[in-house]
């Protein structure tokens, strides 16, 4: 590949990164020729762009109220922090542990999920501990998806699914959640999967379907019937199911989270992914897990053994203790698996109210900690935002950039979570994260209140 082409690629790269390096250097001819040999492997072609790298830096300005990236600004429960500090004071906890998962942790996971699934789970053969839910997704794709496979992805999707499928040499096949006709979208339950459309996506090349429930960004929880429909197709076509359930505990009143792996015929073909970060509000601990049958998990374990080998010991020890503690508390008000959801429901409703006051339309999520907000009714004039991006950048990208700059409020554009063919259906939405302190929500509320007023006075 020519150096010129490399530099062109540089300029596509997200801000604040290699693009600057590229322009800043001056090269001699011989260096130019030499560097052209240091090409990257084909597997990363086109995978360098990423919505987070772009928007995280924009939102990093401390004067911006950040409802963008999905992490809490509320503290985690004190007992997990204490467990971590205690672990570090034990010599053995600072050295390598078992590669596929620290024994106390896989045993705790086996107990908690054995209870949830209603079946025994072998801690050593049916569980793999990974670097976050993200690491589980990666181990799953690398372990089970091959060149030429097709993988069905439901839109909107957590954005990493696509590059991971591509990196495995496979082709993503999209099916969008659709809004029930006639409905002004009110809740995430108003979005559905068309059974005929879904069925048409399964081909002889389909290796797997990825589902995410509760869904990021919409917050939809797939119903038992919907899961059964997916399960029927998986069984009929003998495909795998990768079920991303990192928000499994964040279920709001009246809702029920169903694990597709518990449906008949599904345990043997499903990998279920969970996250300590989301479970205990410690996204910075980056621990997650995959649970499934041995004949599938062993391939994920092989990937683990050849990628990073083992996860940090003291963090695993602390998560194990957090799980065991809460296992004892299941059914009680102090159980974090349920108390966090209760706390968040209030924040969810508050967020919905303040967003409505500003003239935007929220999509009330059934689960998770994100909310889609339809900003189209505002008809916001974005023309005072001069950008050097392409003119055909999606509306939500432009809106969010404008909102960060002009209103000091950060969100994430929802078209980051859909394929190009669905952009038109989703570009009127932005995603807000509401697992935030009351003071953060207050600050957001003040901006949104002001917005309404500013708009009125300037028009």
């Amino acid at each position, binding site marked *: 590949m020519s150096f010129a082409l490399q530099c062109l690629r540089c300029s596509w*790269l997200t801000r604040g990164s*290699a693009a*600057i*390096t*590229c322009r800043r250097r001056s090269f001699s001819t011989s260096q130019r020729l030499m*560097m052209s040999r*240091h090409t*990257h*492997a*084909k*597997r*990363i072609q086109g*995978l*360098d762009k*990423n919505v*987070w*790298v772009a928007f*995280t830096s924009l939102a990093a300005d401390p004067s911006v109220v950040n409802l963008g990236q999905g*992490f*809490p*600004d509320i*503290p*985690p429960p004190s007992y997990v922090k204490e467990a*971590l*500090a205690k672990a*570090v004071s034990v*010599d053995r906890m*600072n*050295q390598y542990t*078992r*590669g596929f998962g620290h024994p106390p942790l896989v045993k705790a996971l086996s107990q908690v999920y054995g209870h949830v699934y209603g079946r025994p789970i072998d801690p050593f053969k049916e569980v793999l501990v990974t*670097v*976050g839910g*993200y*690491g589980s997704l*990666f181990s799953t794709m*690398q*372990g*089970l998806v*091959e*060149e030429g496979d097709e993988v069905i992805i439901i839109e909107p999707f957590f954005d990493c699914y696509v*590059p*991971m499928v591509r*990196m495995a040499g496979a082709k993503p096949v999209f099916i969008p959640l659709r809004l029930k006709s006639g409905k002004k979208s009110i809740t995430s339950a108003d979005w559905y999967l068309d059974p005929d459309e879904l069925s048409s996506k399964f081909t002889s090349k389909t290796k797997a379907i990825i589902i995410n429930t509760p869904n990021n960004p919409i917050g939809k929880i797939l119903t038992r019937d919907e899961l059964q429909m997916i399960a029927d197709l998986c069984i009929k076509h003998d495909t795998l199911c990768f079920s991303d359930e990192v928000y499994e505990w964040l279920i709001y009143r009246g809702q029920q989270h169903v694990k597709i792996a518990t449906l008949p015929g599904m345990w043997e073909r499903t990998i279920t992914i969970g996250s300590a970060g989301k479970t205990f509000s*410690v*996204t*910075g*601990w*980056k*621990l997650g897990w995959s649970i499934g049958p041995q004949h599938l998990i062993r*391939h994920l374990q*092989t990937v683990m*053994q*050849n*990628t*990073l*080998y*083992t*996860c*940090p010991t003291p963090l695993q020890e602390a998560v194990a203790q957090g799980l065991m503690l809460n296992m004892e508390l299941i059914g009680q008000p102090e159980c974090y698996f349920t108390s966090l959801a209760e706390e968040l429901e209030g924040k969810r409703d508050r967020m919905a109210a303040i967003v409505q006051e500003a003239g935007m339309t929220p999509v009330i999520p059934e689960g998770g900690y994100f909310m889609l907000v339809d900003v189209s009714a505002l008809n916001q004039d974005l023309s005072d935002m001069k950008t050097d991006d392409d003119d055909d950048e999606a509306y939500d990208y432009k809106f969010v950039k404008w909102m960060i700059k002009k209103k000091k409020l950060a969100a994430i554009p929802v078209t980051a979570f859909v394929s190009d063919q669905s952009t038109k259906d989703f570009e009127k939405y932005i995603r807000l994260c509401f697992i935030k302190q009351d003071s953060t929500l207050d600050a957001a509320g003040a901006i949104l209140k002001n917005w309404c007023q500013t708009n009125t006075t300037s028009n």
Partner: protein
Amino acid sequence: FFRKVKVYGQPNLFAKSVEFTQLAAEYKAVNLGQGFPDFSPPQFITEAFCKAVSGGPPMHQYTRAFGHPALVQSLAKFFSRIVGHDIDPFEDILVTVGAYQALFCAFQALIDEGDEVIIVEPFFDCYQPMVVMAGGKAVYVPLRPKEGTAVLSSGDWVLSAEELASKITPHTKAIVINTPNNPLGKVYKREELQMIADLCIKHDLLCFSDEVYEWLTYDGAKHVKIASLPGMWERTVTIGSGGKTFSATGWKVGWAMGSGHILKYMKTIHQNSIYHCATAAQEAVAQGFEREHELFGTPQSYFQQLPAMLHHRREKLASSLKGVGLQPIMPEGGYFMITDISSIAVDFKDSDTKDENYDFRFVKWLIKEKGLATIPVSAFYSPEHSKEFDKYIRFCFVKENSTLDAAEEILKKWSQNESSH
């Protein structure tokens, strides 16, 4: 069904060492096999971790994906003066989940189907499956004991320039070196690195330099970074480890350092595989480097104290081994010492293992019959060369004195048994 995974799905050394670990536990063996300390990390680093844990909520949430700012900045500051190059913390460094993941990112980002990668043997065995997983082909060139002299030190094992040059083809993309070396303990001299560098420049190769044991050198051996040689910064990925640096292998904080135009590809792999590394652990390692920056070159520096302590442990183990007629190869650096076992005649009696390499059989016998766990060195060689090097076993001496004392007892008893026959 899973063709690709089958190719690299063979159990690697870690998996085998798990087998040995289980065997060692079963026989209650003194374990000098596993490559990690059985003593605690230094107090200042565990305190730094506790301080990070009790820090505000941001310490428990996602940090910058390519490396916690405090850590990349302290690494850049620390290593710039060693490498002799202004390292940009945000362009030239990628923080990873241990050096292991840094290696993974390097192979995935830069090695493609059909590329050849030269691996110097003996090698930390994950290099080979990582090359295969990236679609590449591993080409091996062994370090060999010098002819005609007594081989007493890892410095007596050398790379032949001709042999290395002969392995380079138009498909060669990179060479992997590890200095100080696991398992041999060799610390490559400047001239040896220059020889490798000359070939890299001549043939426009990349160099992946695994330097996780960089602070552990003995007998005045000096660790030299190949990236500091002229013409090498722009083509070298240097890999380091917080775990090995601060005796906290379970923290899994590592990094890759190199020119941004190469690192950026590794960042793409990282952002599509793991994305973020644990925040608190990175903060603690950052504080560790800040402290070492202040104390660099002084007697209070952990980078002086640890090798000084291990120097003695190394001597202690070597004399125990010599005392029973074994021939240790004194390592110039690292965690490990290999020992020639060819002078010992053993009747294995175990017909189950008769197809395995001699050192594998010996290691299992040593666990079961003598209660001492080690690792067979032929595990660190390619299939084509493993039979040439199957008379060595590897000991880890980064252990408490009590562990080494226990090993010494076993060896003494063994030699007494031998001499009484």
